[in-house]
């Protein structure tokens, strides 16, 4: 099973899995991709822990809680090249819309005052299994060093393909105008 192929790992932090859908959207080129690489820790193959050093790590979503930060730091430790995939990883995206609302107000709206909330005790969920929220949502590059940023919501499959194949064949990542899109 073990090969000399470089490994790729992916993670979805505070994202919607849309960027991962866009990875799958490379369609039958995924057959060429698995000739080039093995997938390591990733929701694509459901491997939960790193099995070794990875050439490329793709990160979807920013950091909204302490678990996101730990996963991101783990990826930085295991990946030679780490890529922010999509708007949420790059600028926080939709989850970052809470960044100009104080955290307590967010909690009160979600667990006390929201129109559909039934919570007579008024307690916030505090199970140790639930990761603690950060004061705001952080873009990945404000937490660890990120090497590349692929823009888009989600980045087009062609953008992901162009960047991955360039990196895996030791060529510079040069995206044409039409593959740089913020929406």
């Amino acid at each position: 099973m073990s090969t000399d192929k470089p490994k790729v790992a992916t993670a979805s932090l505070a994202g919607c899995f849309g960027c991962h859908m866009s990875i799958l959207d490379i369609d039958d080129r995924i057959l060429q991709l698995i000739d080039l690489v093995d997938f390591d820790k990733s929701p694509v193959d459901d491997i939960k822990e790193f099995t070794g050093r990875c050439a490329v790590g793709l990160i979807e979503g920013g950091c909204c809680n302490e678990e996101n930060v730990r996963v991101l730091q783990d990826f930085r430790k295991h990946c030679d090249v780490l890529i922010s995939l999509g708007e949420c990883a790059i600028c926080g995206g939709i989850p970052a819309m809470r960044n100009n609302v104080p955290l307590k107000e967010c909690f009160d709206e979600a667990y006390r005052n929201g129109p559909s909330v039934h919570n007579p005790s008024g307690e916030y969920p505090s199970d140790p299994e639930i990761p603690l929220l950060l004061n705001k949502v952080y873009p990945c590059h404000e937490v660890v060093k990120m090497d590349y940023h692929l823009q888009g919501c989600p980045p087009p499959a062609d953008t992901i393909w162009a960047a991955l194949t360039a990196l895996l064949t030791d060529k510079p990542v040069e995206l044409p105008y039409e593959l740089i899109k913020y929406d």
Partner: protein
Amino acid sequence: MMSDRITFTIDGVEVQADPGQTILQAADAAGVYIPRLCAHKELNPFGACRICTVMVNGRPQAACTTPAANGMIIENETEELTDNRRSIVEMLFVEGNHYCMYCEKSGNCELQAMAYRLSIMVPRHPYQFPDKDIDGSHPDIMIDRNRCILCARCVRASRDLDDKNVFQFVGRGKEKKVWINSEAKLSDTDMDVTDKATDICPVGAIIKKRTGYEIPIGQRAYDHKPIGSDIEEAKATAESN
């Protein structure tokens, strides 16, 4: 023989100007694109965004406000100037809340298009996530100050083209914002959806209601060609004729 044409160079290419023309106007006519956000053909020069800054005889000057003069040696597309422009655009992105993914202006936005043209993949400055106001009081027009880049196009258009003076800046530094000439709401002004000021916003800060997402992705202004292509192509066409 005397000629009142002014001659100067941009990146080594000879450009001619009429007396009174700014560097930017002369460059446009010559098919040389100097990136800009606050400058607009129908408006007087203002010099708000500084993206059009070029080196004039070795000194930085805003091309939109500096009159062309004989013998000027102008640098436009240098590595340093391009990086300065990137930095300004990056600052505009982090100082507002620019969520391109759901913005009605996406694809037709000049700020976004400028970032595309400059190949910006991530801002070097930390995101500020500032708290900004939205004014949806007007029946046909909305103001979303999250997206405002303080270019003053609406201020100038309303005052000089519409003769209404609906907009003005208030505050200083990071508190500066475009405000309206009434107690509180846009609906209390005589702003009308047919005003020049409605359409002139380069970003999605002033938008017409019920027109969002009308143009499909792939057919929007900057989907296939970088901003400034029209100016550069006019020159290419003229040369091939």
